[in-house]
């Protein structure tokens, strides 16, 4: 229980991050069909398959070449996603993970606040790359409020696992909130008003990553 308390007292080691990616890969594999059918409605119908291929490759890459530091693990995940996904989500998620990893540097233990700041760097990187803002019906619609919830919770000094759980709840409801939106980025943007009424697949997969992160924190904290 000692590490389950607040902010930077919690030290997340490389094992934590390997666990996160493992859980994320499992969640993406389990939700592959749903992600693909969401994408079939407004995209090119390959999001689940592509992301599953990417996370499967990322998990294999981490096993083949175990990283020494949390930052190195996430940079490796990002690089693998970029080179193996094949669709737009490869460079987008790849950039998120690479930037988070780079922000963590060579720290052996990462505090919750440090992780939140690194996720902010990942978000900034993907926004620069893809040019999306909140409301464009993308993964950014999930990352922004979930990160805000995480930072606010940590600032309040709430328990770490409670804060990550709350952020994952926010992420899931933010993903559902993309349903009525009109897409302004990616292939779905060509559909104009016909993109309304469907959950954005990138937002849905982003919520899976937040839930996997919260579960990883729970697994450690209890």
């Amino acid at each position, binding site marked *: 229980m000692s590490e389950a308390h607040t902010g930077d007292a919690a030290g997340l080691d490389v094992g934590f991050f390997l666990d996160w990616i493992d859980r994320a890969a499992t969640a993406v594999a389990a939700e592959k069909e749903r992600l693909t059918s969401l994408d079939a409605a407004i995209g090119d119908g390959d999001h689940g398959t*592509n992301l599953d291929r990417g996370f499967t490759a990322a998990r294999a890459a981490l096993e083949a070449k175990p990283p020494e530091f949390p930052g190195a693990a996430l940079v490796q995940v990002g690089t693998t996603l*970029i*080179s193996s*996904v*094949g*669709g*737009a989500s*490869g*460079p*987008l998620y*790849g*950039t998120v993970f*690479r930037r988070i990893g780079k922000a963590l540097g060579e720290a052996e233990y990462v505090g919750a606040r440090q992780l939140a700041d690194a996720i902010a760097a990942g978000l900034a990187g993907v926004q620069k*790359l*893809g040019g999306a803002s909140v409301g464009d019906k993308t993964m950014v619609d999930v990352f922004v409020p979930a990160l805000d919830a995480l930072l606010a919770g940590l600032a309040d000094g709430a328990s770490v696992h409670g804060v990550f759980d709350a952020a994952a709840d926010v992420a899931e409801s933010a993903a559902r909130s993309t349903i009525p939106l009109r897409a302004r980025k*990616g*292939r779905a943007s060509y559909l104009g008003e016909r993109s309304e009424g469907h959950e954005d697949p990138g937002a849905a997969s982003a919520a899976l990553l937040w839930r996997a992160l919260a579960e990883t924190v729970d697994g450690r904290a209890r």
Partner: protein
Amino acid sequence: MKLVGVVLVSHSPKLAEGLAELVRELGGDQVPVIAAGGMDDGSLGTSYGRIERAVSEADQGAGVLLLGDLGSALLTVKTLLDEGVGQEARAVLADAPFVEGAVAAVVTASAGGDLESVRAAAEEARLFRKL
């Protein structure tokens, strides 16, 4: 003379190859035009590794202009350039229409244009009216 190289990036291997064939015909065979379409196994997608290899293949020492068609092709190229890939080859991405931009770039490169003029020619191609 060293000519500017051109790399064509698409989700589709056939689209990139077909465009490469077309512009080689129009621009002569001196300009290194390399297609980087699809994944390594030939399926639809964009491959970081393929684009990386295409850039070094297209590099004669005068710089390399990249053209992409849609979403993921452009995102992959931007990510790769952000990571510093192609820095040695002085690779840049054109903000240009895929077909018209490639034609303008290759014609300009074949005339010995430098990287900036090849890029400018590609980007001006967006102004061509069809009617």
